[in-house]
């Protein structure tokens, strides 16, 4: 299991991290060698991201030591990490949008004083050199604002090179990328590895890990479970180590009676975002909507629900065409939408759980104009019971609940509207396996009750297990409508991958 010879670049011993009273990492020992691409695998909450962030100085370990080239070091903050040669590339790269690409590469990194002269010409030259090195064509004098995520990642990598980083950590970099961009990223990673640098690659995607990485470390529940060369482990081995139990079919689909068409959209178009989207969802049916991040699925959902309406096309509910320009209209028509980012678009963090649950049904808690607290409280208690929401009190701020319970509360909110059509956008993201299973059975039940469900998800196993049909979007278009019997991971992926080159159009 362990490699002989070369001295490790980074040696972590006994790393532990506790947030408040929760242990997220326990006693992790890990060696990272120079000149390797090392994958960190594990479920959400397993600790892989936290470990990487400790290396990158974002968190400080509660226990344990880190040695760089044999010398013990402290990494108190990201700036110190950069000086030590460790760079973290976030999934959504952070940058200064109003500054140019060249500036973004160097800002904050220079050692000289406040009032020293900025060497513009040299900066631009160096930036161009790095871009050429990476084989990327970006105009370094343009502002960062408006760059695609793939290009932003390239800039981050260039920044890592500019500061001569020996350890580059990539946190789930491929989720927003097209396959061609992924391939570009991989070839750069390999080039960096061949130069003797170390790359940490955090991902969920086994195929990518297998294609790119030399060694892999698996985390589970805050512990490091195993480290091995990728060749020595099969996929089943990896999954078993990640989950801790053999993969079993815990997801099942109860057969619901599928009735008439509840939601029908025709030729929905929003220029620049999605075009010509047409599909139907029947009562009792669970229709999946798969595709890569950025394909436009959430935008379609937001268009149907009235958050950002489409420019053209029709929406019909139970055969009748309707016009939806605002979410309040959608709700009145029997639609419900659980958004993908609950922190941004779902919860009122500082308000009570009660208030969060009752927000979509004002008429029920205030029939005469004045809020009846007893009614609201009963409503909340009912929701907690039905969905097994774990909390201390309905009056506590929802922000204190765990992710899974927050999501349940949001779901409860929408179930109270008794929707005929329910749109779920990544409902189980960031939720532990046990709670996920609960969600799946709830979703199945909802379909059995005769509701029409549109399930947007990036997790292929989820789509395949739950859905009667899987729609796939790619680059703003609907590319496939696959019935359950024919749905496989490959088929969905095949339809999700964009065809042809991307055209970058800049208005005159």
């Amino acid at each position, binding site marked *: 299991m362990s490699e002989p010879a070369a001295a490790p670049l980074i040696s972590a011993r006994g790393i532990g991290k506790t947030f408040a009273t929760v242990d*997220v990492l326990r006693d992790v020992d890990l060696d990272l060698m120079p000149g390797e691409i090392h994958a960190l695998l594990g479920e959400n909450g397993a600790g892989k991201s936290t470990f990487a962030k400790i290396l990158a100085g974002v968190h400080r370990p509660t226990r344990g030591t880190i040695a760089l080239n044999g010398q013990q070091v402290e990494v108190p903050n990201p700036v110190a990490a950069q000086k030590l040669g460790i760079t973290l590339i976030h999934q959504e790269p952070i940058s200064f949008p109003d500054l140019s690409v060249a500036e973004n590469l160097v800002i904050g990194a220079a050692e000289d004083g406040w009032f020293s002269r900025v060497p513009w010409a040299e900066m631009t030259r160096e930036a161009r050199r790095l871009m050429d090195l990476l084989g990327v064509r970006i105009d370094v004098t343009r502002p960062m604002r408006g760059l695609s995520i793939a290009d932003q990642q390239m800039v981050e990598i260039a920044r890592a090179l500019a500061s001569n980083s020996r350890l580059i950590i990539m946190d789930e970099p491929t989720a927003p990328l097209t396959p061609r961009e992924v391939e570009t990223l991989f070839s750069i990673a390999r080039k960096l590895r061949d130069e003797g640098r170390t790359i940490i690659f955090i991902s969920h995607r086994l195929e990518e890990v297998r294609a790119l990485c030399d060694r892999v470390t698996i985390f589970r529940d805050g512990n490091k479970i195993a480290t091995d060369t990728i060749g020595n482990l099969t996929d089943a081995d990896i999954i078993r180590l990640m989950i801790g139990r053999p993969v079993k079919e815990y997801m099942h689909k109860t057969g619901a009676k599928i009735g008439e068409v509840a939601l029908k959209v025709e030729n929905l178009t929003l220029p620049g975002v999605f075009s010509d989207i047409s599909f139907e969802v029947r009562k009792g049916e669970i229709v999946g909507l798969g595709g890569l991040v950025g394909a436009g699925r959430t935008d379609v959902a937001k268009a149907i629900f009235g958050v950002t309406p489409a420019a053209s096309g029709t929406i019909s509910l139970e055969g009748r065409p309707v016009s939806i320009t605002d*979410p309040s209209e959608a709700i009145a028509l029997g639609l419900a939408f659980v958004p993908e980012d609950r922190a941004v678009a779902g919860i*009122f963090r500082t308000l009570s759980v009660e208030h969060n649950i009752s927000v979509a049904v004002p008429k029920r808690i205030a029939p005469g104009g004045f*809020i009846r607290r007893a009614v609201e409280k009963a409503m909340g208690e009912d929701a907690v019971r039905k969905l097994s929401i*774990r909390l201390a009190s309905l009056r*506590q701020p929802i*922000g204190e*609940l765990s992710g899974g*319970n927050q999501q349940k509360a949001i779901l409860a909110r929408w179930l109270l509207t008794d929707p005929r059509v329910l749109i779920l956008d990544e409902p189980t993201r960031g939720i532990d396996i046990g709670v996920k299973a609960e969600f799946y059975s709830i979703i199945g039940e909802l379909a059995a009750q005769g509701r029409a469900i549109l399930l947007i998800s990036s997790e292929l196993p989820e789509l395949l297990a739950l859905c009667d049909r899987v729609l796939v979007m790619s680059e703003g278009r609907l590319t496939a409508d696959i019935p359950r019997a024919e749905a496989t991971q490959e088929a969905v992926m095949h339809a999700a991958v964009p065809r042809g080159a991307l055209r970058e159009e800049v208005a005159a």
Partner: protein
Amino acid sequence: MSTMDTTRPAQDIAPAQPRWKTLLIRPETMTFILLVVGVFAGSLLSPFFLDINYILKSFTLYSELAIVALVLTMVIIAGEIDLSLAANMALSACIFAWAQASGVPVPAAVLIGLGSGLAMGALNAFFVIGLQLPSIIVTIGTLTLYRGLAQVLAGDKSIRVPDWFIGVDKVMLGGIPLPVVLFVVLAIVLGVVLGGTIFGRNIYQIGTNEVAARHAGIRSARIKAGLFVLAGVVAAVAGIMTASRLGSVRYDLALGGELQMVLMAMLGGTYIFGGRGTILGTFLAAWLLVIVSTGMIVANVLPAVQLVVLGSLLIVAIIATNLIYSRTQR
């Protein structure tokens, strides 16, 4: 895409704060305590302080600003701010006074004054909600504009109002000056609306997370626009009341009043970033401010020093409110 929930994987139940803690450790309590302390300190300065009539009479001097501060509180809770309200008072009052001085019968002139207040609020709403511009800068712009227009209209002169119109502060209802009664009534009404109706609840939700509010079906644009317009109308009412109290109108009516209004809201525990605050808090803070201001006058403190005190109070108030909110929540 959101980041994964890696910070709390194992813990589901988070203990809630005990009931008494959330009820008592609030900015309003601090305001109340300060109020009591202020009355006590005031009584040491001068026996007048324990004379309720004296306090009520002093309050009438600030009643107009206090009334507007109540509505301003709601605007701030909704996540916006309106610094143009004092200038609105002046311009509405000038338009009212000028109209009636030009021969328009007083009731009609009042309506015209109210209408212009409404229009000013609507203009704010247009820029902030229609054009999606930040309310802080917009209302700085409109405050300059409205004050400037008042200057254009009234020049350097005072416009008198008819004798029978003067003296709203002398009208007594049960021994209490009318403006104070209006303030209390408005506080009760708005307090009930904010605390007990869906509209009020929505204001808190919009201020806490506007995106989530929209997704939940709350018509946030309408509600915020409505608040700006309401604030405009109430400011116009306040402006006309001031005209009655002073007997004449000048362009510099309520000059600097935006500071005092914001101060009342902040001293009352309204969170500047929105989502938290109460009418009760602003209500208590208005009394507190009156006590402090009156106390300074009684103690023969120079107006300049009073200004210093007010400015410092504002800073201290937001520091304290910030601290309290970050301790008990988040």
